[in-house]
C-alpha cells in the first residue's frame, strides 16, 4: 500500500534520508524506531507530504506523493497524529474532530457531529464533547487527536512519536487506543520508543540510523536476535529501563 523506492532527502547539505526502500502492505502495522536524528520522523512526514523529498519515489495507494496536485485528496485518506497533538485551541473536542469532516469531506453537519461523537466515545472521551483542549490532560488531548484523524475514515494511520510528549501515567491510555486500532486491521506506521507496544502489535519493526534503514524484522527476531551491531547497541540502551 505504501512503497518507498530509493527515497532521498537533503536538508541543505545534510543527507537526512538515504535511498530508503520499504514496502508497507495493507493491514500491516510497522513500527519505526531509532536514535534521534536518524530520520524516522522525516520519513513518516514524507508520506503525507509534510516533508518534500528530492530523489526516488514514494507511492501511497497508487498515488505518487511527489505529485502535489493530488496531495489534498491523498491527505484525506491519511490520518496523522503528532507528538505535540496540535489540537485547535479555539475549538471544542467535538469541533476539533468534526472540522475536517464538514469542510474537507463536505459531510452535512448533523452527520459529522454524529460520527464525531461516536469516535470520541470509542476513544473513551464520551463526556468531553464540549471541553476545550486547555481543559484536557495530555493523554486526553492525544486521544482527541487520534479521534480527529480517525473521523476522516483514513486508509492509513501515521503516528509520529505519539506518546513522547506525555507524562508516564498517560502513555498507556493512548497506547491502548492504538492497540485497538491495530487489532481492527488498520494499516499503521508508528514512530515510537515504546517497545512494549511494538512487541504486542507490530508486524514488522524497522530500525533506522543516520538516515538509512539498518534492519527490518519481525518483533520477536528484532528484540531477541538483532542481526546488526548498531541495532544491538540501540536496544541495549533503551531496554535498560
Amino acid at each position, binding site marked *: 500500500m505504501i512503497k518507498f523506492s530509493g527515497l532521498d532527502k537533503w536538508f541543505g547539505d545534510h543527507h537526512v534520508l538515504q535511498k530508503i526502500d520499504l514496502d508497507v502492505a495493507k493491514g500491516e502495522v510497522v513500527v519505526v524506531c531509532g536514535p534521534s536524528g536518524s530520520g524516522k520522523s522525516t520519513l513518516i512526514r514524507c508520506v*503525507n507530504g509534510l516533508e518534500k523529498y528530492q530523489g526516488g519515489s514514494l507511492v501511497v495507494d497508487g498515488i505518487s506523493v511527489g505529485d502535489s496536485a493530488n496531495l489534498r485528496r491523498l*491527505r484525506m485518506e491519511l490520518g496523522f497524529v*503528532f507528538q*505535540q497533538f496540535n*489540537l*485547535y485551541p479555539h475549538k471544542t473536542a467535538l469541533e476539533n474532530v468534526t*472540522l*475536517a469532516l464538514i*469542510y*474537507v469531506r463536505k459531510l452535512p453537519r448533523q452527520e459529522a457531529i454524529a460520527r464525531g461523537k461516536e469516535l470520541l466515545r470509542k476513544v473513551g472521551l464520551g463526556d468531553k464533547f464540549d471541553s476545550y483542549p486547555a481543559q484536557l490532560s495530555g493523554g486526553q488531548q492525544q486521544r482527541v487527536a487520534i479521534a480527529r484523524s480517525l473521523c476522516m475514515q483514513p486508509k492509513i494511520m501515521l503516528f509520529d512519536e505519539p506518546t513522547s510528549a506525555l507524562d508516564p501515567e498517560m502513555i498507556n491510555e493512548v497506547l491502548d487506543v492504538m492497540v485497538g486500532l491495530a487489532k481492527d486491521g488498520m494499516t499503521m506506521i508508528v514512530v515510537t520508543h515504546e517497545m512494549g507496544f511494538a512487541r504486542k502489535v507490530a508486524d514488522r519493526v524497522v530500525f533506522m540510523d543516520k538516515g538509512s534503514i539498518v534492519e527490518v524484522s519481525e518483533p520477536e527476531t528484532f528484540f531477541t536476535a538483532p542481526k546488526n551491531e548498531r541495532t544491538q547497541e540501540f536496544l541495549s540502551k533503551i531496554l535498560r529501563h
Partner: protein
Amino acid sequence: MNLSLNFRVIGETLPDFLTGLTATVTISLAAFVGALVVGVIACAMSLQTPRYLRAPAVVYVDIIRATPLLAQLYFLYFGLPSFGLMMPEIMVGIIAFSLNSGAYVSEIVRSGILSIPRGQLEASAASGMSYLQQMRLIILPQALRPMVSPLIGQAIVLVKDSSLLSLISVLELTRAGQTLAINRFMPVEGLATTAVCYLIIYYGLKLMAYAWGRFNQVGATR
C-alpha cells in the same frame, strides 16, 4: 509668568474646540479603517511565495517606516494635483494616514499570523484542508487575539498624527487651539485645552486596551 487660565474665554471657544475634536475623531476613524484595508492587503501580499507579489509589499512597508509622515503628507498634498487629482485637504490627509498606518497594521497582522505555532498549519494540512480553509478556520481566528492590543496602539498613533493636518489648513483639534492662541492672543489657554482634549482621547483608548487585557485574561482557560 501668569499661570492662571482664563476659563471664560475657553468656555466661549468650546464650540470651536468641539468642531475640531469631531474632525479629529472622524479623520482618525476614517484613517483607521483605511489603514486596516491597506494593511490586510499588504500583509496578505507579503505572505505569498511568488516574489512579484511579496516584493512590493515589503518595499512599501520599508519606505513608509523609513520616511516621516509629514514628508509623505506633503508628497501627496503637493504631488496629487499634478495628476489632476484635486480633493479637499482632509481627503489627502486620510489617504496619507491610511497609507502610513497601513504599513504598521500590515506588520501587526503579520506578526499575529506568524505567532500561531506551525503545528496548527501542519495539523490542518494533514486533514486535507486548502490554504484558504486553513487561514479562515484555524489561523486567523487564533491570530486576531494578539492583534487587538497593538491595533489600539496604532489608533492612538493615528489620533496624534491627525494633528499634522493643521499644517495644511484642516480645521481639526490642533488648529482649533491655534485659532484661540493666535486670534485671541491666549497661547496658554489654547494649547492647554488642546492638550487636555488629546489626553482625554488618549486615556480613553488606553482604557479600552486595559479592558481588553482583562477580558483576555478571563478567557484564558478557553
